[in-house]
């Protein structure tokens, strides 16, 4: 079935469906860019370009939200790889270079929970964000992260355990 506002190169995606999940996807992109609005906006545009061009093709095997989250995740990863390889080159040739410094917006909420989440390893932090804040199931979150559901569960359990311990420690300190 083809919606009236379906994309030409992605017939299973409609513009209105994307609009409905725009805010959630932006939140995910925002956290992928270390909470920098400009980079998140650029990442969102890039993700939409991938959908418009059909480079990222949705085939209804998962929910649209999971799929678009994965696109954003992959784009953020490849961007991070490019930046890392440039930094490696700079280090290799010992060139004095003015590496573009991205000003990141400090998260407004800076309570214990936030600090505890930020202190988690990347994968644990990702799955906690996806399951707790973006309301994805562990299966969906694992798909977004590109890991098996079993691995996702392990990250999820470890993340919860680590969070509880840290929160408990801080509560005792206070």
């Amino acid at each position, binding site marked *: 079935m083809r919606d009236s506002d379906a994309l030409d190169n992605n017939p299973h995606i409609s513009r209105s469906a*994307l*609009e409905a999940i725009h805010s959630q996807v*932006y939140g995910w992109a925002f956290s992928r860019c270390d909470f920098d609005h400009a980079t998140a906006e650029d990442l969102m*545009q890039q993700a939409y370009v991938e959908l418009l*061009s059909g480079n990222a093709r949705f085939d209804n095997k998962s929910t649209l939200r999971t799929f678009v989250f994965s696109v954003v995740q992959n784009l953020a990863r490849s961007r991070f790889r490019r930046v890392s390889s440039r930094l490696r080159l700079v280090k290799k040739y010992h060139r004095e270079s003015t590496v573009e410094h991205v000003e990141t917006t400090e998260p407004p909420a800076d309570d214990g929970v936030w600090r505890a989440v930020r202190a988690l390893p990347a994968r644990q932090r990702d799955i906690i964000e996806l399951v*707790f804040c973006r309301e994805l199931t562990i299966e969906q979150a694992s798909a977004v992260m590109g890991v098996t559901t079993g691995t996702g569960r392990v990250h999820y359990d470890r993340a919860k355990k680590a969070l509880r311990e840290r*929160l408990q420690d801080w509560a005792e300190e206070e």
Partner: protein
Amino acid sequence: MQNSDKGLRDQVRQGWVSNGDAEPSFETTWQAAQQRHAAGRQHYRRFAGAAAVVAAVVIAMYAQPPAGETYIEVADLLESTYWTAPSDALLPDRQFDIYQDMPVIFESTKPAGGALL
């Protein structure tokens, strides 16, 4: 366990960063993406056009069929070159015609140092 998970989830949600006021609207992002997509396609078309032109030129230059077999006319070839006897080149100041003017061959029976002169 379920309750403690829910408590943890609520805590994390409360502490999580909201997207903030700077979140761009869908319309703005979508239009920018469409422009980027169109610009990308235009760029691709230009590149493909240039590549096609280059390919056509290369094919025209190297894959042209031969115009037809051509033969060399002997008369033309002879006019374009000449032949000189090696003796003419080696002995430009020849003093006699080896065929007409037989030189006087010296004959001697006088030995000199064990050999005939």
